[in-house]
């Protein structure tokens, strides 16, 4: 049976329909996907993302261990900073993408849903192989994670956070913050491409009360509860990878186009393989494709340049903001420069599309 969030009953009360994702039964939507999507782009949305994982890496060698595991160099991110990045195998393929928060006690790593055991096992392996002195603590099943996202996220959260001026917590910073008299890990991070926060509530018994407080605080901003449906459309409009889709079958950060988060100066697992791949220049690269005619590309659709098969869609859908089909696809070299006209085969029909640069929906571009 699928795992459930400790606030499952509250979701039911709020009208959620559920879906199974990575072994968890989580809200798919409440009032409707598009309304939830727009609430996050224009106001504020509340997500329960307790299916995500929480792993502490603490102790004397926590920083060298994180440096060895992660493609980002933790030296560049002192206490109070957070970083999106990934950890990879020796062959350069991504095990998972994640955010680490550099907290005063150590590094608080947030791997994806169902990845906690794999992450912990991998961290321990790297620690032991290098003789590092660090403890690795899995709190995934003891923590409720709430994401509060959207332009009104700060105004909403400032009403419940008691001891921190949130205007001083910048995007991708983290801190302890007091809510309802107790302190929890708070980061200004998210997976929607909007400003927002993620609150890590441990013990989980505190979560229902805090969730209700946030719901009340957000009322004046027409806060919507948001399910996994809109979570997916929100991240796709901002070209953010979904691990199960974009890294399926073994992809490196070079191929997935997330090497912007990589620091080449430090030594990390998989670096040699990635350098070699980068120099070879023959790799497939994840590119955003915007449909220029009717049709909605989906996971697994083939991408053509004339008659030549040049790629495959890993995530596709309709953009609620643009009302157009959008997709992320791995595309061969020579067919993926900005503006390149390609076609996606959607149920036997060719849908014209173009390679674009950057995010589908740029900042404050979601009109209507």
């Amino acid at each position, binding site marked *: 049976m699928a795992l459930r969030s400790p606030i499952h009953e509250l979701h*039911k009360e709020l*009208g959620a*329909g*559920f*879906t199974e994702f990575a072994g968890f039964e989580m809200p*798919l*939507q409440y009032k*409707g*996907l*598009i309304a939830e*999507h727009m609430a996050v782009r224009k106001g504020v949305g509340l997500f329960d993302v307790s299916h995500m994982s929480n792993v502490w890496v603490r102790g004397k060698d926590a920083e060298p261990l994180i440096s060895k595991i992660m493609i980002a160099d933790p030296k560049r991110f002192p206490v109070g900073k957070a970083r999106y990045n990934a950890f990879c195998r020796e062959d350069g393929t991504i095990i998972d993408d994640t955010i680490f928060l550099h907290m005063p006690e150590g590094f608080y790593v947030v791997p994806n849903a169902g990845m906690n055991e794999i992450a912990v096992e991998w961290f321990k392996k790297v620690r032991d192989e290098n003789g590092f002195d660090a403890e690795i603590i899995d709190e995934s099943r003891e923590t409720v994670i709430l994401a509060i996202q959207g332009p009104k996220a700060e105004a909403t959260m400032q009403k419940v956070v008691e001891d921190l001026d949130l205007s001083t917590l910048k995007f991708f910073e983290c801190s302890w913050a007091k809510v309802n008299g107790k302190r929890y890990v708070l980061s200004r991070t998210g997976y929607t491409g909007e400003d927002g926060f993620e609150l890590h509530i441990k013990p989980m018994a505190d979560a229902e009360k805090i969730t209700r407080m946030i719901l009340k605080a957000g009322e004046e901003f027409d806060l919507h509860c948001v399910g996994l*449906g809109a979570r*997916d*459309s929100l991240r796709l409009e901002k070209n953010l990878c979904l691990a199960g889709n974009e890294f399926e079958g073994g992809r490196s950060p070079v191929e997935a186009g997330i090497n912007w988060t990589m620091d080449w100066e430090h030594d990390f697992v998989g670096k040699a393989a990635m350098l070699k791949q980068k120099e070879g220049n023959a790799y497939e690269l994840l590119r955003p494709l915007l449909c220029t005619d*009717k049709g*909605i590309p*989906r996971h697994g659709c083939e991408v053509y340049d004339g008659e030549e098969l040049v790629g495959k869609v890993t995530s596709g*859908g*309709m953009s*609620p903001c643009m*009302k157009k089909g959008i997709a992320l696809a791995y595309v061969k070299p020579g067919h993926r420069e900005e503006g390149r006209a390609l076609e996606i085969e959607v*149920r036997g029909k060719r849908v014209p599309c173009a390679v674009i640069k950057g995010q589908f929906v740029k900042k404050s571009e979601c009109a209507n």
Partner: protein
Amino acid sequence: MADSEVRKGYLYTKSHEWLKVDGKKAKLGITDHAQKLLTDVVFLELPDAGAVVGKGDEVGVVESVKSVSEIYTPISGKITAVNSELEDAPEKINESPYEEGWLVEIEMKDESELGELLDAAAYEKIL
């Protein structure tokens, strides 16, 4: 999804289509449960009126932001009408799955095929 509506007087398939029989004709749509699983419908493809369909044939495609679902007819016959209003207002499938969200109307060729469908009570059990 415990809160999905199941209408009495309709017939159902295990794949979450409904039929509303009126004499020799039957309207076909997707159930409240199906529209909730799909999320907001944004695009659909329907057949042309006059098309002859066999039991189990695809008679449409309903696409939401999140996913795509083929619609199959559990009865054979001729398509006598399609709900063209949905082209401009596909959200009617979410808002009114049993009324305004109907997809096609079929003139039945063999009414005995209806015997294989579920009534409301039987459909409710599989949700």
